[in-house]
């Protein structure tokens, strides 16, 4: 029975050490608002998407510049609500004063956010709004309907009066951002969902290789088209590969504004991209966090960080910047 007694000893030891902590209070050691020192936690959707890497780097730099503590955590994949909830809990546990989050699902992490807010943490949504928007204190994000509308307006102008025959490569079914962009595009080009002018449509989950495959399949059905909507730049690159293999030249637009995307526009892979400004979201979020720690004053509502069409073929009636400007400012603060 030697080993059983060892186990008992270990268990007893465990109980003893955990017993020591009974007096500590629930909720960790979160500093009350107004006490001065900001501690900012950033929760992104994933670790690896360059967009979120940019967001993280910008937030980290802003926090350092403003003398705030900073930590970043992420889900493991798009849709990893559980991972994001875990991240929120761990941050509250470690006493952050502000959590900035790009929620994986607009409804998935609301319970955890509510608990964090009850513990006195300021919660800011970055890039992606929650549903309802009031679940967080404030949202710093691109108005994705407006971004889609700009893409639609550009494509419409670039078609120069020709009746649109468009293929739409969407993102993830059901994602709010993707739906907003999709609807905005249709508004901008002046079509309704289900219009016969939409000659094909599929979801590519924002993935380049899936987008290429889906586009190839759609082109198998028809090559009678003159415009393509893509929900982000990897999707546009995938679609471009499929179009190029078929020797098709048409008007294609995208959204994101990463440096690689702007370079794609410059290289002529697609005509325009709508740039958004994640660095601005991160910096404004950190500034609000510092302000909250100093004064207890919270930001509120939806703060649009703006979006700009980037193209080297400007169209009348569609305000835009060229790719030289785009390369200087990709995902920037302007």
């Amino acid at each position, binding site marked *: 029975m030697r*080993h059983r007694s060892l186990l008992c000893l270990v268990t007893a030891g465990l109980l003893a050490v955990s017993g020591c902590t009974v007096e500590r209070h629930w909720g*960790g050691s979160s500093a009350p608002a107004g006490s001065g020192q900001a501690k900012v936690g950033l929760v992104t959707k994933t670790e690896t998407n360059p967009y979120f890497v940019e967001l993280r780097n910008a937030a980290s730099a802003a926090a350092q510049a403003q003398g705030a503590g900073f930590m970043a955590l992420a889900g493991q994949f798009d849709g990893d609500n*559980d991972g994001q909830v875990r991240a929120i809990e761990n941050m509250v*546990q470690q006493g952050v004063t502000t959590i900035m989050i790009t929620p*994986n699902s607009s*409804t998935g992490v609301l319970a955890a956010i509510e608990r964090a807010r009850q513990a006195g943490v300021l919660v800011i949504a970055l890039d992606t709004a929650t549903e309802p928007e009031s679940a967080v204190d404030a949202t710093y994000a691109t108005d994705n309907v407006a971004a889609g509308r700009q893409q639609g307006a550009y494509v419409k102008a670039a078609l120069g009066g020709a009746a649109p025959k468009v293929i739409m490569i969407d993102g993830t079914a059901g994602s709010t951002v993707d739906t907003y962009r999709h609807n905005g595009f249709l508004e901008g080009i002046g079509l309704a969902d289900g219009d016969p002018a939409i000659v094909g449509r599929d979801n590519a989950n924002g993935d380049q290789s899936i987008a290429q495959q889906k586009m190839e399949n759609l082109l198998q059905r028809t090559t009678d088209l003159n415009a393509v909507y893509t929900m982000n730049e990897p999707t546009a690159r995938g679609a471009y590969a499929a179009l190029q293999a078929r020797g098709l030249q048409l008007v294609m637009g995208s959204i994101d504004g990463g440096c690689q995307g702007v370079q794609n526009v410059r290289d002529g892979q697609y005509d325009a991209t709508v740039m958004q400004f994640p660095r601005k979201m991160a910096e404004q979020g950190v500034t609000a966090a510092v302000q909250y720690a100093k004064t207890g004053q919270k930001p509120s509502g939806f703060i649009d960080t703006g979006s700009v069409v980037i193209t080297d073929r400007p169209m009348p009636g569609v305000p835009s910047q060229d790719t030289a400007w785009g390369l200087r400012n990709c995902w920037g603060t302007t």
Partner: protein
Amino acid sequence: MTTHARAERETLGEFFLRAPAIGPALALVVAVVVFSLSTSTFLELDNLSLVVEQSLVVGTLALGQTLIILTAGIDLSNAAAMVLATLLMAKLLTGGVPGIFALVLGVLVTALLGLVTGSLVTRIKLPPFIVTLGLFTILTAVGKLVASGQAVPIAPDSLLAWLGTRRYLFGGIPVTYGMTLALVMYLVLWYSLTRTAWGKHVYAVGNAPEAARLSGIKVNRTVVSVYLVAGLIFGIAAWQALGRVPNADPNAYQLGNLDSITAVVLGGTSLFGGRGSVFGTMMGALIVTVLRSGLTQLGVDSLYQDVATGALVIAAVAVDRLARRQK
């Protein structure tokens, strides 16, 4: 788990072989001690409670996975079945079906899936890996179809989310109903595996199916029963998942199947069947969560956390092999 006659002196290998949950328990203790000493926040009651809460879903999946792996099988579709069940339950609930019926129906669906898997494995002699790989693909797609690609939020005060409710024991120890349910499940399974004929049959079938058959055990029936019980457990995991995140999401838990295998392996259960324990699995699930929580608090990048977890899995299997060789 087994009751060998005690040898005069046993080697370390024999020791680990005889009590496979000891290794993981020690690893867990070491991790807890290290993190408690190196961070000021790890050893808080509410943090320890969080760690347990965070391990519940994968821990429950791993319970079912343990049963299957004990029969030398494997289930790659368990998390997909669980996600499908969460979607069905949430859809039914929001469609006006009372929570209790939604819950029962969801669990029945995963149990039925277990029955189907078990039948394919035993009747047509398909390798469990292949059957569940196919099912994984099917169930993932069906989940997305059921939900039309949308997440389905449920009211946080509904029966389906009830397991996430937090209570304070002795005035200060935060405990959720989900933890209590998990503890009960562990105890029931521990009893079933170690104190009943069924449990002995499960181990026997995993160790040497032919010998089990010759000694009169109905091998096929035992294996099917294991997949059925595991299916039931995956349904309960769905309930746990909704208690944790009251939002059924077709994209959630994409790595749940692998996470559950990780917990089982870290818990000292042999992938070759016939040896292991549910308490080992409990330790295994906790080790992963403790590592993630502790390393996070130390500020270690989560990609390095993945590296550490992966290395531990390989080490755990290596210990298993070495222990067997020593014997």
